[in-house]
C-alpha cells in the first residue's frame, strides 16, 4: 500500500495529489492521496499505473478476474499550456499477454479527468449488473448501464453524455468487450472533434469482465503551472520543428506512411509473406484523402490536427461516415489481408470502433488465420466458410462474428497465439506476435532497432515501447544490429516518460524530440516548479521501465520470452529494397546479451538487486526470481 504519503492537495503545481479507488464488487469508493516524492518518482500516467498495479495486484491473477485492476491516469502537464498533453493512460494486466499493459487515448477525456482532481482512477472488482462509473470532483458514483449493454460504443458514449450534465466525457466498451474478446478496446467519443481509442492489449475485455460498460468524467478544477512564462518560452522554441515535423501528418494523418514504408519494402503483406505491396497506391493516404476526406479533427488543444473524418460517397459502402483508418489499421485490415478495397477498410474500421476491438490484433489474427487456411491448417469445415486473402466481405463478416464470438470466430476472439495452439506446431511459424500481442506495421525484419525493441517490449508486439520514428530517417542505419540495443534502451526510457506525462507521441517526437533531451526537464520543471536535470528524467524513465519488467518477471517472463516470431528470425524479406533482411536467432541473442548488460540485468533478463536499489525500487519490488 502507499502509506506515509501525506495529502498534498493544492500544495503541488501540476498535480492534485489525489487518487480515486473504486471497488465495483462492494460499491465502495475511496479517496487516497500521494505526495511530491511519489510524483517525482513516477510522474503520472504510465508511471502511476505500473506503480499502483505492482503494489496492489498479486502475481498470477487472471486478467479477467475481479481482482485485476484498471488504472486510468493522467500526467502533470495534462490540461496545461503544453501542447499534445491530452492523452489518458489506461494500465492493467492484459488478457492477451498476461503481463503489464498500458494504452493511451486522445480526445477530451484526459482533460476532463484532470479537472475532477483525480490523477488516477483505480478500479477493481466486478459489478453485479452492468454499470458505468461517473467520476466528479467529490468522488464517484456507480450507475446502472443495463440499458446500454449490447450497444455500440458511440451510441453509449453519446447517451451517457446526454444523461449527465454538460462537460461530461465518456469512454465505453462495445459488444466485444462485453463478450471478453481478448483484444477488445475502449472508445472515447468527443463529438466536437477527434475521438480516442485505447486500442491495444484487451483492456476492453477487462472492463467487460467487471461489468463496467463505461467511465465518465466531469470536473472544473484547474491545474496550476509553476512558471507559465517558462512554458511559453519553451513552446516558442519547439514551434518550428513541430510545424516542419508534422507537416505531412497534418494533411494526411498517419496514413501518409503507407507509400513511404511500402517504397522501402517494409509494409507487411499477406501475413508478412512479403513486405512490398503492389496495390499500396490504392490504399495510400493520398488516395484515401482524395476519395473520402471530409474534415480535420483534433484532440483538445492540439495544434497538429492529425485526425480526419471520412465520408464514403460511392460503392458498396457509400454512406459510411467515420474517422480515418490510421496507418496501422490500413496495414492490419488492408495489406496484411491483401485487401486493397479502400471503402471496405473504412467500413471495417468503423465496425471495429463501434464493436470495440483493436484493429491491429484483429487484422493480424485474421491474416494468420487466412494463411493457415491457405496452408491447409484450417478447413472450410472448421471455419464454416473459406478464408481467402483479399475477400473483404469475409473480413467484414468475421469482424462482427468475432465481437459476438459466433462459431469459429470464437477462436479468432482469443487472438492469434491462442488460435495457433489449436492448430498444431506448424501454425506457430506463421504467427506475427511477441509475448501474445500481435505486431504492428513497423517491420521487425527491416528495422533492426525494432527487432530488439519488440523482443524486449514490456507490452509485447508494440511500437510504443521502442519507437520506429527515428529509424525511418535516411541517415539512420536500419540494417545493422550495431548500437541498436542502446538505441532501444534509450528510446524505451523516452516512451516511458512520454506515457507518464501522457503527452501525444507525435507532438512529443516532432516538437520536443524523439529521445529524452533538455526540453523534457524544462517542460516538467516549468509546470511543476521542480528542478529536475535531464539525468533525473532519464532515471524516471528507467525506473518505470524496470518496474514494468519486474511486474512481468513476477508473471514468469525471462529471456526465453524476449524473442521474435519465427518468420522474422528465419525467413528473409523476399523482395524489394530490403530483400534478404531478417533477424536470425544468433543476432537476436547477441543483441539481447548487450541489452541486458546495458540495463544491469542478469543474463536471464531479470533486474538485479543492485539495479533496483539504484532506482529506489528495492522496497517496492522486493526479491525477484533469478
Amino acid at each position, binding site marked *: 500500500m502507499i502509506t506515509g504519503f501525506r495529502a498534498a492537495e493544492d500544495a503541488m503545481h501540476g498535480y492534485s495529489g489525489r487518487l480515486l479507488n473504486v471497488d465495483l464488487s462492494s460499491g465502495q469508493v475511496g479517496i487516497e492521496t500521494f505526495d511530491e516524492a511519489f510524483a517525482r518518482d513516477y510522474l503520472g500516467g504510465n508511471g502511476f499505473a505500473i506503480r499502483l498495479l505492482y503494489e496492489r495486484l498479486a502475481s498470477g491473477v487472471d486478467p479477467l478476474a475481479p481482482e485485476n485492476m484498471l488504472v486510468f491516469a493522467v500526467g502533470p502537464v495534462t490540461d496545461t499550456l503544453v501542447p499534445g498533453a491530452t492523452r489518458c493512460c489506461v494500465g492493467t494486466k492484459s488478457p492477451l499477454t498476461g503481463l503489464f499493459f498500458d494504452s493511451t487515448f486522445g480526445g477530451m477525456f484526459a482533460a476532463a479527468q484532470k479537472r475532477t482532481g483525480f490523477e488516477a482512477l483505480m478500479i477493481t472488482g466486478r459489478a453485479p449488473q452492468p454499470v458505468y462509473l461517473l467520476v466528479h470532483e467529490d468522488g464517484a458514483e456507480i450507475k446502472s448501464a443495463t440499458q446500454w449493454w449490447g450497444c455500440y460504443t458511440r451510441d453509449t458514449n453519446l447517451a451517457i453524455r446526454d444523461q449527465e450534465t454538460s462537460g461530461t466525457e465518456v469512454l465505453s466498451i462495445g459488444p466485444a468487450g462485453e463478450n471478453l474478446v481478448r483484444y477488445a478496446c475502449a472508445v472515447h467519443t468527443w463529438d466536437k472533434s477527434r475521438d480516442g481509442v485505447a486500442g491495444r492489449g484487451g483492456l476492453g475485455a477487462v472492463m467487460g469482465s467487471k461489468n463496467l460498460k463505461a467511465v465518465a468524467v466531469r470536473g472544473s478544477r484547474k491545474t496550476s503551472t509553476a512558471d507559465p512564462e517558462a512554458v511559453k518560452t519553451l513552446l516558442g522554441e519547439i514551434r518550428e520543428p513541430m510545424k516542419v515535423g*508534422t507537416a*505531412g501528418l497534418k*494533411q494526411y494523418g498517419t496514413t501518409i506512411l503507407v*507509400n513511404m514504408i511500402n517504397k522501402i519494402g517494409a509494409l507487411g503483406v499477406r501475413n508478412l509473406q512479403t513486405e512490398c505491396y503492389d496495390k499500396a497506391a490504392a490504399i495510400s493516404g493520398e488516395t484515401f484523402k482524395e476519395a473520402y476526406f471530409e474534415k480535420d479533427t483534433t484532440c483538445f488543444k492540439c495544434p497538429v490536427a492529425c485526425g480526419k473524418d471520412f465520408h464514403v460517397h460511392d460503392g458498396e459502402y457509400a454512406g459510411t461516415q467515420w474517422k480515418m483508418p490510421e496507418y496501422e489499421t490500413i496495414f492490419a485490415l488492408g495489406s496484411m489481408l491483401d485487401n486493397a478495397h479502400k471503402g471496405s477498410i473504412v467500413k471495417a474500421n468503423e465496425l471495429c470502433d463501434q464493436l470495440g476491438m483493436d484493429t491491429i490484433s484483429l487484422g493480424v489474427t485474421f491474416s494468420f488465420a487466412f494463411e493457415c487456411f491457405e496452408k491447409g491448417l484450417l478447413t472450410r469445415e472448421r471455419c464454416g466458410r473459406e478464408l481467402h486473402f483479399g475477400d473483404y466481405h469475409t473480413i467484414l463478416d468475421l469482424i462482427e462474428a468475432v465481437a459476438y464470438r459466433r462459431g469459429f470466430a470464437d477462436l479468432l476472439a482469443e487472438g492469434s497465439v491462442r488460435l495457433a495452439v489449436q492448430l498444431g506446431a506448424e501454425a506457430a511459424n506463421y504467427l506475427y506476435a511477441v509475448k501474445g500481442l500481435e505486431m504492428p506495421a513497423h517491420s521487425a525484419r527491416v528495422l533492426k532497432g525494432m527487432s530488439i525493441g519488440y523482443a524486449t517490449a514490456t507490452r509485447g508486439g508494440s511500437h510504443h515501447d521502442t519507437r520506429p*520514428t527515428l529509424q525511418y530517417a*535516411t541517415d539512420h542505419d536500419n540494417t545493422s544490429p550495431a548500437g541498436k540495443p542502446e538505441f532501444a534502451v534509450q528510446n524505451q526510457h523516452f516512451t516511458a516518460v512520454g506515457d507518464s506525462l501522457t503527452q501525444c507521441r*507525435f507532438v512529443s517526437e516532432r516538437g520536443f524530440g524523439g529521445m529524452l533531451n533538455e526540453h523534457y526537464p524544462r517542460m516538467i520543471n516549468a509546470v511543476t516548479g521542480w528542478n529536475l536535470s535531464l539525468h533525473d528524467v532519464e532515471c524516471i524513465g528507467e525506473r518505470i521501465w524496470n518496474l514494468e519488467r519486474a511486474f512481468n518477471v513476477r508473471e514468469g517472463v525471462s529471456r526465453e520470452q524476449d524473442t521474435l516470431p519465427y518468420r522474422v528470425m528465419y525467413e528473409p524479406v523476399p523482395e524489394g529494397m530490403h530483400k534478404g533482411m531478417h533477424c536470425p536467432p544468433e543476432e537476436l541473442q547477441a543483441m539481447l546479451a548487450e541489452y541486458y548488460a546495458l540495463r544491469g540485468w542478469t543474463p536471464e533478463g531479470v533486474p538485479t538487486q543492485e539495479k533496483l536499489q539504484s532506482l529506489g525500487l528495492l522496497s517496492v519490488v522486493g526479491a525477484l526470481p533469478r
Partner: protein
Amino acid sequence: MHVTVTTIIFGLPEGQRLVSTRFTVATATLTVRELIARKVEQEVAECLACERPGLSGEYLSPEVLIKARTREALTPGTVDTEIVRAQRAFAARDYMIVIDDKRLFDPDIGVTLLPETRIEFIKILPLVGG
C-alpha cells in the same frame, strides 16, 4: 545513353511527390558522384531554360521543402553550387540513391546502367505516426 531518374519525396504537405529527370550519359558506367552531378546539371539547365518548374529538391532541407510549398519555389543557384549541395547531402545521407532496389552509399562506386535500370533518388521528410 538515355537515363531517367525518378525523385520521390515523402512527407510533403501535398503527400508524396514524384518527379522525373531525363538526360543522357556518355558512358553506361559512371560513379554515383557523376550520376548526381549529371542529374543536377540537367535540372539546373532545364530550370534556367524554363523547361521545368523547379528543382526536384531531394538534397534540400525539410524546412526549405515544406516552406516552398510548390516546386516552382525551388529555384536553383549556379550549377556548381547545386552540385556541391547535392553531393554534401548525399554524403550526410539526407537522401537515398536506390538503383534497382539496391541502396548505394559510396559516392565513388561505379554503376552500370542499362535501359531498364530503375534509378530513384528518395527523400524522406521527418515523419511520424503509427
